[in-house]
């Protein structure tokens, strides 16, 4: 998926759910924590959005600001994560083929 499209989707999610009527402008590098945009419930909602939208699973260790504290951080995280997820599904597809071939 194109990173510009993902950036727009994440930005829309943040604006629609957390900025509401606010006049705050959000740059891609702005920290959600420092600007007070996200609380712990907001993080859980963001996690659910990312899992549903991009078909990934966020593990306990993934829930750190380095991955989720700005649109830029989310994009970088998704890029790493989706690559990993894609590699994993390719590997399991290869395994299924290999097992199929052994029968």
């Amino acid at each position, binding site marked *: 998926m194109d990173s510009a499209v993902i950036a727009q989707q994440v930005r829309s999610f943040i604006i629609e759910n957390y900025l509401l009527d606010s006049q705050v402008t959000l740059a891609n590098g702005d920290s959600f*924590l420092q600007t007070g945009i996200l609380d*712990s*419930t907001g993080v*859980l909602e963001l*996690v*659910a959005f990312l899992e549903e939208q991009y078909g990934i699973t966020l593990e306990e260790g993934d*829930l*750190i*600001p380095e991955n989720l504290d700005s649109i830029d951080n989310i994009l970088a995280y998704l890029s790493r994560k989706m690559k990993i997820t894609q590699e994993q599904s390719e590997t399991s597809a290869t395994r299924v083929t290999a097992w199929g071939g052994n029968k």
Partner: protein
Amino acid sequence: MSPAISPDILHVDPALETERIAAGIRHIVFNRLKRKGAVIGVSGGIDSSVVAFLCAHALGKERVFLLFMPEAESSGDNLRLGRLVAQCLDVQSIVEDIGPILRAARCYERRDESVRAVVPGYGEGYKCKIVLPNLIEEERYAVFSVVVQSPDGRMKKVRLSAKAYLGIVAATNFKQRTRKMIEYYYADLLQYAVAGTPNRLEYDQGFFVKNGDGAADLKPIAHLYKSQVYQLAAYLGVPEEIQRRPPSTDTYSLQQSQEEFYFSMPLAKMDLCLFGKDNGIAAADLAPAAGLTEEQVNRVYTMVETRRKVTRYLHTAPLLIEKIEGV
């Protein structure tokens, strides 16, 4: 180089502080609120016990009324220790079982439905609590998990979805709001004020339910750090069993410490960090006294600031579109 910070920095003169608070209670109750005494919901924990002792000292034992409000999931010790406080002070008290009100409001049923959304099969005979990860060891988000214990004693921890978390919290908040409703019943009946029991950490960091335990007419220990509450407890003669008892929220069926629920670090350390943050003490100077690294103290400073922002709503009184003159 800055002078070393001592862990004793939170020491108070308990006699002086007791008299200062007592004068404040008398002034607020009699002069500002024009009430005849104070109602206090006593949980058997350190904070409510100290408030009961302070009110009795300030207003006289005949002007203090204690309430014990157990429900199905309360620890039995709470009622026993609450009664011990009433006995020590020789004040009027009453037990109000809030279980029937909670069942009628479907508090347990609604909470269990939300738990089942992440732990299918949760139901009769199970126990639960919600917990935070350790936030001091590494920088991470304060996202809640639910810990459930099955009837055969097996424990399971599952990260909550936002919907399940909100459902559990909204349902369990019935407990604090029901208790406050009962407190105000007796306050109306006796023309007394309701004394709230938050300490400084709870008040500052929004560790209360809006219009639940956050509601009160006065909050006599809201300026005291938790360790200062313990100092006053020792001075006032609060029963030792209460002084030794680990703080608990008394909200969930599984025993839940306040560290697990909100602060995710020992309260004594949190006290020092909050003091350091409030007084502009550099993390490097505070770290040795708190037994933490500079990095950990900085993390707590950030956490304190973030929580102040996200819990501002809890402190906000009802807002008007325009000011009403004369009120």
